[in-house]
């Protein structure tokens, strides 16, 4: 039928030898119609990207081989096309927007030329004609002052602008099909909102078919007309946005949607006045020194930050990238030296301590990092990683072993796994190990720096639960750094909103979410994808 842009029939792609399963995607069938946005949702390894790249013909031929099925772009089968023909189609009939706008743009070529390149390839426009067209599309994606921006390089643009360039590039030749692979995942929440708006708008105006890959149900809620859920390379369920979000049939879909944290904080009991575990006063961190020659480019990463965390309480620090939230965390753990202010842990000011003086206090304050793949030394067994701390503080090998085993159970892993190496664990499991490692020190304060951001939503939910439990169990004071308002809403008793190194708002989570005072907080909440849907309730 004519209004089908893309139709995939029983597509199967084989994985190379020695992979964890035989097929990357198996018997995938789907259609993208004119003027609809089809979201493909799934966790990592679900094969959603493979599907997209197979359509574009950009899969590494050595590794991935389509073995069955058809991909019909406006009727004709892409799998039967020669490389040359595919090149012709790419950009002209179908275009793609990638996840990382920074790396997806050639850093050493003017953005204007990069868009122009497309016209150069597929049309015989004159230089001048190309330029006018480029500026046209740049206007179309509402980039400020296109004439000027034409000559700028990617690194001179903001993340959002880069992604707009990518989109402009995709639009330049008015392709029938636009494939967007996690186009907003790398962006801050406010930017994300804008870009999503743009894509919707573009799609409406040009009436193209959009295949939108994402892992974020919030985004799905905002943008999808139809939804396709994939798991382990298979399509488990598909339907209209509302069918899927309000009335999912397949248990996996249910589970996924159920794991999406709600944006409305649960009402918590007023925290009992517990002792203060951690206190920061007038905390400052300035990066970059103004040297004699270097024209003193200084970044005020944290400015007069005040914070207090009581035992048994979780303080959330939310903000977009560059807000200085991580800086605060790292100062408090003394991974970097604050340029000013006090950090008090039960009475002692550790802000100005030397490394030697600091050591005894290290025990009391532990941190869990974002990236589960780099947080563990790949050359040491998780056991060794866990006992390292305690043994630094004189715990005997035997006791350390025992403690490690208990902790493994607590974080929900088999004690036997202690002598395995990190690469034998999944992301979520590694994060559990990291938590165990932190707990092994029996700290008073636990800092979670974007500890769940890198995890798939289902795993994320479990790890959040774990963090909550251990906080209860050890009566920890927890400092929870995140950019994700949903997560923050669920786990934090109080939150603290940071922007450009300054705390703009602070208060009980429920209050802040209910009626934010500071405009920035407002914009953050307003931008949260799928804010009008409350998934958790469905589960």
């Amino acid at each position, binding site marked *: 039928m004519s209004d089908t842009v893309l139709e995939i029939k029983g597509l199967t792609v084989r994985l190379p030898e020695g992979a964890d399963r035989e097929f990357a995607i198996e018997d995938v069938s789907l259609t993208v119609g004119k003027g609809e946005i089809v979201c493909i949702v799934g966790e990592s390894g679900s094969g959603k990207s493979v599907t997209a790249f197979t359509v574009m013909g950009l899969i590494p031929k050595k590794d991935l081989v389509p073995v069955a099925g058809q991909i019909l772009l406006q009727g004709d089968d892409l799998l039967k096309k020669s490389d040359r023909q595919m090149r012709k189609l790419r950009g*002209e009939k179908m275009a793609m927007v*990638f996840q990382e706008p920074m790396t997806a743009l050639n*850093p*050493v070529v003017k953005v204007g030329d990069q868009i122009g390149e497309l016209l150069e*390839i597929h049309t015989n426009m004159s230089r001048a004609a190309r330029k006018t067209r480029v500026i046209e599309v740049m206007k179309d994606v509402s980039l400020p002052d296109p004439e000027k921006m034409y000559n700028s390089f990617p690194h001179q643009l903001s993340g959002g602008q880069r992604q707009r360039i990518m989109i402009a590039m995709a639009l330049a030749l008015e392709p029938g099909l636009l494939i967007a692979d996690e186009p907003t995942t790398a962006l801050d929440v406010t930017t994300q909102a804008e870009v999503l708006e743009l894509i919707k708008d573009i799609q409406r105006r040009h009436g193209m078919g959009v295949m939108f890959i994402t892992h974020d149900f919030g985004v799905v809620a905002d943008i999808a007309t139809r939804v396709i859920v994939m798991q382990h390379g298979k399509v488990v369920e598909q339907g209209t946005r509302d069918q899927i979000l309000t009335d999912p049939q397949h248990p996996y879909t249910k589970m996924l949607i159920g794991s999406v944290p709600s944006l409305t904080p649960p009402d918590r009991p007023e925290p009992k006045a517990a002792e203060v575990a951690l206190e920061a006063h007038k905390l400052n961190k300035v990066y970059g020194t103004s040297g004699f020659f270097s024209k003193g480019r200084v970044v005020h990463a944290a400015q007069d930050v005040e914070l207090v965390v009581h035992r048994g309480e979780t303080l959330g620090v939310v903000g977009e990238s560059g807000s200085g939230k991580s800086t605060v965390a790292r100062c408090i753990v003394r991974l970097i030296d604050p340029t000013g202010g006090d950090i008090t842990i039960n009475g002692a000011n550790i802000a100005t301590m030397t490394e030697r003086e600091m050591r005894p206090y290290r025990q009391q304050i532990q941190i869990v990092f974002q990236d589960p793949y780099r947080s563990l030394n790949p050359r040491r067994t998780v056991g060794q990683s866990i006992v390292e701390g305690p043994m630094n503080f004189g715990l005997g090998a035997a006791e350390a072993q025992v403690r490690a085993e208990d902790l493994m159970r607590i974080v929900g892993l088999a004690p036997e796994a202690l002598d395995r190496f990190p690469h034998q664990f999944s992301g979520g499991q590694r994060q559990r190990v990291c938590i165990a490692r932190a707990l092994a020190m029996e700290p008073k304060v636990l800092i979670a720096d974007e500890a769940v951001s890198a995890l798939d939503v289902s795993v994320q939910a479990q790890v959040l639960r774990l963090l909550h439990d251990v906080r209860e169990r050890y009566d920890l004071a927890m400092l929870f750094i995140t950019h994700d308002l949903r997560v923050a809403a669920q786990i934090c008793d109080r939150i603290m909103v940071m922007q450009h190194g300054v705390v703009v708002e602070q208060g009980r989570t429920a209050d802040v979410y209910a009626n934010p005072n500071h405009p920035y907080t407002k914009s953050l909440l307003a931008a949260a994808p799928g804010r009008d849907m409350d998934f958790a309730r469905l589960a």
Partner: protein
Amino acid sequence: MFFYIIKRILATIPVMVIVALFVFLMLRLSPGDPAAVIAGDYATTEDVERIREQLGLNEPIPVQMYKWIAQLARGDLGTAIFSKLPVTTLIGQRLEPTLLLALCTIIFTVLVAVPLGTIAAYKAGSWIDRFVMLFSVAGFSVPIFVLGYMLIYVLSMQLKILPVQGYKSPFEYGLWEFLRHMILPVITLSVIYIALIARMTRATVQEVLQEDYVRTARAKGQSEFKVLMFHALRNAAVPIVTVIGLGIALMIGGVVVTESVYNIPGLGRLVLDAVLARDYPVIQGLILFFSFIYILINLLIDLSYTLLDPRIRY
């Protein structure tokens, strides 16, 4: 940018000082002295002593060092003990051949190595790639002088198609004569260098080809050739240029050998002769000169980054 250059130039001073002291002490604390060489075979111990006095070689080392440094501060590299010519003059006389040899070598190398490396990277695993890699390993493995002799033996002695030795200045004898005499030395000298750069190019281009923006280019339907030229190479430029810079040191070493095999009156041989004759001022002057050049070139290279990569700003 301007400040950066100043800063970098200032930064070279301590390095140069270190080099200067190192060289000076190395020379003075080692046996062998020019006086004896000068005095010749029939000289008596007395003669040798007299001459040492004349050359001021029996002053205490700190004094000598002080004098020398003071001299340097005045931009004076001193006077050769034997020829009694200012070291700067000697360098002047020898600069042209070495400079042109180096220049031709670099040009030739780049012309050969970069395309080789790029193709190898693009066709990774193919027979071309294997060939290039094999060549680049072999290039590292053949002693430069053996190579030189083989070339002379075959091309000059047997086939008689190229001159055996010597240097013909393009300004006196014309470009053609110059090139004829340069071919063998340049090939000899460039082999190891080609190996190095081809290998480096391959590595970088291969890395760049993994980048997202290459994928983007393909998504645009760009042809593989253009992808390689327009996207891959342009991004590979910085590391490649860097190696060319680091390679300069490598090449200066090779120059010494090449010049003595092909009897090119360049700086390399000047320094070699000076070492064998213990002509301290010349040795010191030249080593300083070489390291200065090296540092200078690498400074220029760092600056060239700003042209190659807009992200780099000083």
